[in-house]
């Protein structure tokens, strides 16, 4: 578990934590890519949506042979459910699409589970990524 300053410039610290933990546990490259992407999208959403939250966001990673559970915990924040974000219609032509809004769509696409819990100002976002045939 690590506490990361809630700034976009902290992303390198976030990636270093994930990659260090994954290397120790022989996690394959594709899964590491997916975890990095999910972590960045969720972390940057917390930074942007929970203005006024605490100075750090806590990130934990639990790696076992079947699956990886990654948890981001934000403190002193308002309730925000990433699952409530409208799905992006990726089949629309370019002229009808706007930049942005893709982050949660990508997370939902690359992880096996995305859940959210809020209690007394503390928000926890959890993603599960199955290791599948890559064990």
């Amino acid at each position, binding site marked *: 578990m690590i506490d990361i300053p809630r700034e976009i410039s902290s992303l390198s610290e976030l990636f270093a934590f994930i990659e260090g933990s994954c290397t120790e546990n022989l996690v394959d490259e594709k899964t590491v890519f997916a975890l990095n992407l999910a972590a960045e999208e969720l972390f940057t959403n917390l930074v942007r949506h929970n203005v006024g939250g605490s100075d750090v966001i806590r990130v934990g990673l639990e790696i076992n042979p079947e699956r990886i559970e990654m948890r981001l915990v934000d403190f002193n924040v308002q309730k925000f459910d990433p699952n409530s974000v409208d799905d*992006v219609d*990726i089949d629309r032509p*370019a002229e009808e699409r706007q*930049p942005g809004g*893709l982050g949660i769509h*990508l997370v939902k696409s690359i992880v096996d589970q995305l859940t959210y819990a809020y209690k007394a100002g503390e928000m926890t976002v959890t993603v599960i990524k199955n290791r599948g045939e890559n064990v």
Partner: protein
Amino acid sequence: MFDIAVNDDGSIRLSGRFDASQVDTAQRVFVEITGSTVLDCEDLKYISSAGLGVLFATQKRLMDSGQGLKLVHLNPHIREVFQLAGFDTIFEIA
């Protein structure tokens, strides 16, 4: 680490990790693009929605004048991100 360089032939080489902390750096180069341009992604290791947003905004601007970005040498993980975003039909990908 992210780097963006303009080659002698006008193509642009992206390398490293194109994440949300690199958007401003990338924007400074992409806003200068005025015509069809090749993006060489051979050394690009990672891209997130923030990086995709920069490319998409540029692509939309170029498409208005019948031009566009062509992405070459994408690694399989980045190619998958483009597919998940539905960008594989918006950009020319070789």
